[in-house]
């Protein structure tokens, strides 16, 4: 909270904080904003509160568009779910989808008639989830390895440094294909794991350098002289002091992960269908941009991605200013 307030005080970072706030808000409240089921409904003598989140069995296979016999209903602002195709909405129009933006679909639909806005909102959840957890894993692994390597030095450092070199070159695609086919799950975890486990090297290198620098400083020497255990010295004294630069790297890492997700989607290695992600929408756009000219599939996710990356980077810069100024 304190950190946020401090960022808010940084005028240059304010638009970025606002933009990210909106994106995170959309991601968190995605189910309330865009869903195939309503916010509340009374149907068949039963009242359902927030069926869009609870997804009761009684409403299975039904949606706001096709629900009949309701006494009353409070719709979600966007009355479509992210995976709701025309097979569920029953929409019939002249041509096949993708359909351009209009009153029914504010940002148009994709190739199977799914609402682009609904997919963007739920895609924010997926893209941000991937980005944040990738970075968390990368930071965790990176700090551990970098910290140990830097503090212990000697043979451990030599071995870990080689590992660092190995991972720096290791091609992500190999790892991803292998993980995906071994784990065989519909969830996002293989993607997050693969990304996280190949992207910790920057953090590790940074932490190692930082620890090498810090461990010769007086306060660390003093702690050691007082008989503090190595674990305590690393976790209490060294890592907290290395946290600043790590935070900066991590922020930029989030932006990089958002971009990576789109590239992997393009290569067919992204999230499992029918999950929405920004990269998945852009990949459809690649197919439909020339024929039949579905610009809305290209522009809106493109803007979302650019906006996120920009905001996160601006935030990173702000954090850097804070860290540099604070130390």
């Amino acid at each position, binding site marked *: 909270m304190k950190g946020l307030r401090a960022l808010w005080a940084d005028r240059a970072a304010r638009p970025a904080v606002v933009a990210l706030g909106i994106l995170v808000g959309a991601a968190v409240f995605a189910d309330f904003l865009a869903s195939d089921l309503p916010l509340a409904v009374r149907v068949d003598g039963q009242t359902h509160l927030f069926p869009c989140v609870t997804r009761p069995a009684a409403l299975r296979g039904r949606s706001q568009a096709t629900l009949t016999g309701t006494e009353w209903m409070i719709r979600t602002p966007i009355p479509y779910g992210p995976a709701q195709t025309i097979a569920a909405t029953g929409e019939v129009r002249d041509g096949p989808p993708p359909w351009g933006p209009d009153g029914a679909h504010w940002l148009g639909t994709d190739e199977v008639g799914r609402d682009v806005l609904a997919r963007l909102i739920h895609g924010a959840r997926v893209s941000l989830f991937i980005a944040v957890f990738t970075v968390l894993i990368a930071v965790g692994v990176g700090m551990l390895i970098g910290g140990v390597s830097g503090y212990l030095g000697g043979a451990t450092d030599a071995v870990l440094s*080689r*590992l660092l*070199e*190995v991972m*720096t*070159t*290791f*091609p992500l*695609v*190999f*790892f991803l*294909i*292998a993980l995906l*086919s*071994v784990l065989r799950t519909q969830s996002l975890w293989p993607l997050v794991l693969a990304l996280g486990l190949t992207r910790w090297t920057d953090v590790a290198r940074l932490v190692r350098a930082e620890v090498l620098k810090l461990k010769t400083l007086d306060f660390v020497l003093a702690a050691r002289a007082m008989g503090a255990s190595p674990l305590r010295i690393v976790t209490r004294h060294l890592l907290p002091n290395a946290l600043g630069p790590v935070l900066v790297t991590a922020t930029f890492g989030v*932006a990089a992960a958002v*971009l990576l997700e*789109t*590239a992997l989607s*393009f*290569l067919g290695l992204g999230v499992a269908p029918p999950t929405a992600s920004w*990269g998945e929408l*852009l990949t459809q*756009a*690649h197919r439909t*941009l*020339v024929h039949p000219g579905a610009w809305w599939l*290209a522009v809106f996710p*493109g803007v979302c*991605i*650019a*906006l*996120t*990356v*920009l905001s996160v*980077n*601006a935030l990173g810069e702000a954090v850097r200013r804070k860290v540099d100024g604070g130390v």
Partner: protein
Amino acid sequence: MKRYLLRRLLLMVPTFLGITVLTFAVAHLAPGDPLQLDQETVGAAQADVAKQRAEKGLDAPLPVQYGRWLSRVVRFDFGRSYIDQRPVSEKLAEALPRTALVSGLAVLFAFGLAVPLGVFLATRKTLLSRAVSAGLTVVWGVPTFWVAVLLLLVFSNPRALDVLPMQGLGEGGLVDLAWHLVLPVACLTYPTLAIATRQVRAAMQEALTQDYVKAARARGIPERRVVWRHALRNSLLPVVTLLGFSLPHVLGGSVVIERVFGIPGMGLLAFDSVGTRDYPTVMGVATVMAVATLLSMLAVDVAYGFIDPRIRVEESS
């Protein structure tokens, strides 16, 4: 210096082994093997397939297979691709120059432009510099494949500006080649340019506040010289590091860009061979990448010594 180089070269051996072992393990972790790929449609006799597997050594334990591979590679024999039966070295020799050309040019442009641009942004605080700075951040935020598609749509579309070729590297001739290189090189340049410029700018800004710069100014050395001689030299260190880390990616190629522009380089070779479980090719690509990375890391360390005489190479290992 000689002793240092020798030590560094020796240290490369474990890293090289590490990379290849890891690639080998991960590649074989993925289920599926090359001799099964087309069987479903052709219904080959199982006994024959088993025989062929044995002949190719695919039924040996993984460590044994790795050992065999390694013993051949030290004799520069990468084996034959399982898919098209061509020698892997031949495939690498085809792909590597293409990628080196496209990506090498991109790195050259990116860093060549980043240094003057970064210095400009660090020393001038005008509307233009702010705009350039913001522009670089914006373009960095746009996915590469997306930019590639848009560029094609604008520059190679018969309904828009039909000026640049879309696919491949042309059919010989320098002019033709250059023409074909414009779009892919542009797409690969801009993200690196954005990052590198940011680095140079940050390093430069920091350098300009240092005492030796102030001292140089106090001695009446012209500002131009202060910036380009004294400050720049010191702000190049992080750039060199970045360059070192981008080199392996350069040779690894960008799958996405190679795919969109139809350039059969290292990135596509790696991607396709993983997809078809063509292990000899996968390992060949990994080996080339490993060697390239290690050499570029060494180059970075040596370059440090040249740029900043205060750093003695012995310490930086």
